[in-house]
């Protein structure tokens, strides 16, 4: 494996960040979040390849994936509750924390 995955990781992370900062739909935010997560998982795996400890990093990656599944579940539940409450998925409708 001679390809360097790091630029790809950064591109994925940047894409996720861009998605998070610019999209207004809560579902799109979830997608951005997932992109961030995937970039992170990829970075961990790539770190294992570089450090020659693939077994450890792969097990950590598995753990991260499973935690992400939980995060997604909770996030979706929150979005569902928000939608039920406001009939909307737009982040412009959630400005109640404005100072």
């Amino acid at each position, binding site marked *: 494996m001679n390809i360097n995955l790091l630029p790809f990781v950064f591109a994925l992370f940047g894409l996720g*960040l861009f998605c*998070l900062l610019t999209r207004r739909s809560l579902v799109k935010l979830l997608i951005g979040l997932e992109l961030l997560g995937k970039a992170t998982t990829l970075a961990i795996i790539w770190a294992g390849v570089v450090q020659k400890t693939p077994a450890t990093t792969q097990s950590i990656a598995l753990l991260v994936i499973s935690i992400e599944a939980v995060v997604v579940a909770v996030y979706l539940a929150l979005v569902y509750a928000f939608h039920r409450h406001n009939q909307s998925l737009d*982040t*412009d409708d959630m*400005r109640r924390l404005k*100072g």
Partner: protein
Amino acid sequence: MTAQLAGLLLFLIPFAGALLIPLVNFFAPRAVPWLAVLFGLASSVIAFFLLGGTPAGAPITLDILPGFFRSGLLLDPLSLVPALIATWIGFLVLIYSLGYMKGEENLARYYALVLLFIGGMVGMALADNFLALFFFWEVMGVCSYQLIAFFYKDPKAAAAGAKAFLTTKIGDIGLLAAIIILAVNSGSFSFSVNFGAAAGLALPVLGLAAFGFILGAAGKSAQFPLHVWLPDAMEAPTTISALIHAATMVNAGVYLLARVSPLLALVPWSLTLVQWIGAITALLGALLAAFSNDLKRILAYSTVSQLGYMVLAVGMGAAFASQFHLFSHAIFKGLLFLCAGAVIHAIGTRDIRQMGGLYKHMPAVAITFLIGAMALLGLPFLNGFFSKDFILEEIILGGAWGPLALALIAGALTAFYALRTTFVVFWGKPNYQTHPHKTPANMVVPLLALALACFLSWLLVGPLSEAWIASGLPAPALSALELIRVTFSSLAFLFSLAAIVVGFFLFLQRARLARYFHEQEPGWIRATSRGLGFDDLYTWLADRIRDFGVWVRMFWEERVMEGINRFAAWGSLGLSRLSCRLQTGDVHWNLLYVTLTLIVVLGVALW
């Protein structure tokens, strides 16, 4: 017993009594008055040892603060006169109090304070340094304040106590300043060291110290312009008026002036100032006494006036004459106050217009009061005659004609008010409503003792002047016979006789005078009923000072402190407004902050 030990016991015994009385009061309150009399008796017996043994050898000195301050006893005639007066008159007043204060509340407080006062006065007189003198001076001040306000439930008495305390405090500040000036100069508080070192001081500084002493003496001895507290102090029980405000404490200022007279002699203007203060006070006191209708106020103003004479004598450089008059005055004024107490005790009012004809009910009191009044106006062969003529003589010798004129007018007025008061109270038409109480025997005995002393005390001039000369103080060598010869052959005798005659004439014409004043009512007459406006002036001044204090407080609290508060509030509000801008509530902004923070943290960690 050596004189030194006697001197030490003389003020330690009353102090011990003052400590013990509150304890005794817990389990035997009825024994308290008798215990106090016992302590008074003990110290007045010990006082005789001081008379006999002229102080010789090393005096007692104690290291109060080792290496810094030592205090000792000074037993010369100048200090013994006030100490012995305080002890003996204090003892008589304690006996008199048995009858006068019977049935009052808080007797333990009363007797403890009286004993504390006697100890303070003796300690003040016998101190050989300024610091101890100042300490006991303040002890007296506190006792005076407490005893004036003894009937503290009466707001007038409480106010009078506070007034006396504050007014004398003005003088005390002067005294303290003078003591500090001298102590800084010489590094010692002792009298002798300071008098020696004072010549090395610059004249303005020395003048400041002299002025401080004069101010202190004026406060304590109720001299013009600080005399206003003494008439109000008559709210005290009459026993206290007799002891503190006639016989003892008010003499402390005269004693102080006599004590620092070597120092005053170094400052040219200070003696002139003392003369004029004394003369003005003598006249002012006599004038106010002549127009007063309150028996105790008359006596208080009379005391102010007589103290003026003593201060005048000190101003003439005649400390001996002033102490001689002090001695006479303590006796006859103590007598007059105790008589007044008997009258007030009997009738229950202090207004002489509601008295009259009391001779029938209390002849002993009437006769002794008459003797006291005659001694006050200076009838020949009574003690007041010799001592007052002595002072007038010294004034003539010194050639101070201005003060002499004032003193003579005061003398005429003294004769007038002494006669008027005696006549209106004890002879004249009865005006009282109640049936007078009988005077108890334990109140009459001190009166008789003091009346006798009015006739005899001037005979002591011989031993007194001998003792003065023996201890190196300036005094003329006089025996009693010599005193008679000198007095009757002097110009002062004619002057004082003329003053008495004028006073007697005024007394005879009092009905016409009263009609004139009633019909014409000149402005200054109305002013005398308000103490010639001094109280109003001081009230105005005090109000201005208070207003200034209020303004300072307002400025500090409302402007400075409140300003700091406002600035803090305004600043934090502004900051929070600014930081509110950051909180858009928009998720994306929050995410941006999170990202930026992470970048910063990462940057720091990598760097």
